Structure formats: C-alpha cells, structure tokens
C-alpha cells in the first residue's frame, strides 16, 4: 500500500481549525491568538526546514553532517530545557546541568538502539540516527526540565526542613533526599503514564505514523514498544542526572544549602 500524499490545499483546510481557535480566543478574551499565530507559524517554518534538511541528509548520508545535525538538535533541546521553569540555576551551571542531563541519556539510549535492536548500515544512517535522536530528545528534555523545576521549587519551599537536617549534621544527599526523590518521580511520571495509556487512550505517534505510511500494524507496534522502552530509560536517567547536578549546584563545598545560586526567572522577561 502506498501512503496517501497531502497537498497544500489539504493543509489549508486543517489550518482553518487554527483560525477557529484564534476566533475563540478573541471572542472569549483568552488573549491567546497572537501566541497561537506565532506558534503555528513556527510549526510550519520549523518543520519545513527540518524536512528539507532531512531530505538533503538522507540523499547522501555523511557521518560528519549527521553528527552536526544531531549536535544542533541537542543544542536546541538544551536551550529549550534551560528556558523552562520559574527558578533557574545561576550562571553557566544552568546550561551545564541541562546539557549533561539531556545529552548523556540521549546519546546512551540512541547508541544502544543503533547497535542492538535497529542496526542500520551504516550505523550512523541519518534516517535512523537523526529520527531516533529527535524522538528521544523530546522525552528526555521533558523529564529533565520537569525534574529540575520540581527540585528547585521544592528546595526553596522546604528550606527550613532541609536546613534542619543539615544543622543536625546530615550530609547534603540525606538532607536533600526527599526533595530529590520526589522530583525524580515527577520527571518520570509522564513516560510511565504514556506507557500505561498507550493503545487504550492514545495511539502513539510513531506507530500511527508508520501505519499511515502503510506499515503492518504489528511491525509498527514493535517499533513503538522499542521506542517507549528507550524513552523510559532515557527519561529516568535524565531526571536522575538533572536532579543530582542541580543538588550539587544548590549546595557548596561545605555542604550548605545555597539558594542564592538560584535566580527567579519571573522577574525577567519571559515569553
């Protein structure tokens, strides 16, 4: 079976739904229409750009180009994850923490998939490497930023409790322990919920896409299962790394709680 290809007019019909949203926003005074327009525009431009880059990349697979594209995607994910949340780590630590927490689990999980389950030839074949990185990044980024945000918020809120433990001579890991555990949980919950809901409440995107493209449903399901496991592993690792690193930054060599290493993003301009 060949996939049904879409024309411009098909997209235009779907775009009318976005216009409907915008009208709703104006009528109900939601104040969302500007952001909606901006987001829709970004969606179209960004995806089209990606489409052309991928087409170019797939036409003549090159390890260097693939690596550059993967690097750029990771960089964008790190930037995105550092610009979420009300409280942020001060200085370059913010980027370093996000960078490690996003890049390391992504690299690990994607390399694992490329060398075991999928094994394309060559192994860096961008059709697999770039798409896998894209999928994993989204999930890992979400886990890392949710966990970081939860941890920073909890640390500020539980300052008295954390310092009570420090004052009794507990080390930073004990003192921050419950905040860290709770935050890692928060980072991992989305992927757990996603796995539990898959197939019943939602038809996962990859599987849906492959079925729409003419794949046998069972083969598509196997891909989806593999990906979900990759995402679960990546998310858990990302949440753990993000929280561990943030905990290091929120304490110092004397193992004091250093909330002065945080800045409140709400005081700055944030779209």
């Amino acid at each position: 079976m060949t996939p049904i290809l879409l024309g411009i007019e098909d997209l235009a019909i779907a775009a009318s739904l976005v216009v409907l949203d915008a009208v709703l926003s104006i009528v109900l005074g939601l104040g969302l229409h500007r952001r909606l327009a901006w987001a829709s525009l970004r969606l179209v431009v960004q995806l089209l750009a990606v489409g052309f880059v991928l087409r170019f990349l797939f036409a003549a697979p090159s390890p260097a180009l693939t690596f550059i594209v993967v690097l750029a995607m990771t960089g964008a994910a790190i930037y995105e994850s550092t610009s979420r949340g009300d409280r942020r780590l001060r200085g370059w630590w913010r980027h370093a923490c996000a960078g490690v927490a996003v890049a390391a689990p992504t690299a690990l999980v994607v390399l694992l998939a490329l060398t075991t389950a999928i094994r394309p030839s060559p192994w860096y074949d961008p059709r697999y490497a770039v798409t896998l990185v894209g999928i994993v990044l989204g999930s890992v980024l979400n886990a890392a930023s949710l966990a970081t945000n939860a941890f920073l918020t909890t640390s500020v809120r539980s300052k008295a409790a954390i310092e009570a433990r420090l004052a009794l001579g507990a080390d930073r890991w004990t003192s921050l322990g419950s905040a860290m555990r709770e935050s890692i949980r928060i980072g991992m919950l989305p992927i757990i919920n996603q796995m539990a809901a898959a197939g019943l409440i939602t038809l996962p995107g990859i599987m849906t896409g492959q079925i729409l493209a003419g794949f046998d449903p069972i083969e598509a399901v196997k891909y989806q299962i593999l990906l979900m496991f990759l995402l679960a592993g990546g998310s858990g690792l990302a949440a753990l790394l993000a929280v561990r690193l943030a905990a290091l930054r929120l304490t110092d060599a004397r193992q004091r709680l250093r909330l002065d290493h945080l800045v409140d993003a709400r005081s700055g301009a944030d779209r």
Partner: protein
Amino acid sequence: MSDEPSLIARNLRNAIVGPFDLHVAAGECLSIVGPSGAGKTLLLRMLADLDPSDGEVSWTGRARASWSGPAWRRLVGYLPAEPGWWTDRTGDHFEDLDRAAPVAEALGLAPGLFASDVVRLSTGERQRLALVRALSVDPRVLLLDEPTAALDAASVGRVETLLQQRMKDGLAIVLVTHDEALAARVGRAQLRISNGHPA
C-alpha cells in the same frame, strides 16, 4: 591557640553583618542581645556554617576548615527560631526515641507527642521538641535562636534548668534572646549587637 575546649570566632563577617569576635568556653553561655533585624540570627547561621562567612572560627584550637561541613554542624548544633521538620510524624525526626523521651519529659512534653503529626503540635511544643532533637546528636556547642519565645513561664523554667544542667556537663551555648532576664540568668557573658555590628 588554646587547648581549652572553646568556640572562638575572630573577625567573623559576611557582606551584611560583622565583624564579630566571640569566645565561649565549654560549660559557658554567651548571650546575644539586640533589636530585631540586628543580625543575631545571621551570626548564629555563620557560626553553624549554614551561611558562608569570612574570618576565623575554631573549636578547641582547631580551625573549622579542618572539619567537613556536616561534621562541624554535628559539633556545633543550631536551633533556629522556627525549626524545620522533614516528615509528618514527629517521632521520625529522632534516631533514638528511648534517649529523646526523658529529655522531652524534662521539658514537660507528653511521651505521646512522638506518635503524633508535627502539624498537630503547638508552636511551643514544636520549639521544645526541636531543642530535644538538637540535643539528641550530642553537640559540644549549641546555638539557640529565641528558644523560649513561644513558651509560658513554667516551660521557660524547664528549658532553663535543662540548659543549666547540660552546661554543667560541658555544653557551650550561644543564646540569642529578647528575654534580657533569661540572658542574665543563663549567660554570664553578653554580646550586644545593633545594625549588624557589635554595639
């Protein structure tokens, strides 16, 4: 440098308060008095190494830097004016309930309190329990921030008796209080602070 057990701070300061010089020997109490906002709490937090500070701090002639942060804070306990609690159940804050119970009783606290939730305790009960908790790790120095602020006269008396008793056993105390009478009774030495500096 002296080998006599004592807490010594020289030129202790941060960007806001100081410099402070103080000396408390084992078995003694230094009381710190001064108006609200004078920097008394910040001084205690710097001594406990919960806030960064410049200057020298030592215990029995040994510089603070030779201890890790946690080891120093086991040695120099700190009880804030509003103590923190990290789990719901009161008893979970104590490693050894059998040792904590008699101390709690000496402060007029019912043994049943250990089984109840922290949020159900009164401010005064929490304040006294936090004192029990701070003593339960056997510090050599105890930094107390308004330990009797929420207490009735009878409870203040019990706290005072307990502190006197611990001082006889060699505990050094730095006591921040608005209660000048208490400061005079417990602490022979007094440091007066205003506007972040020794007055």
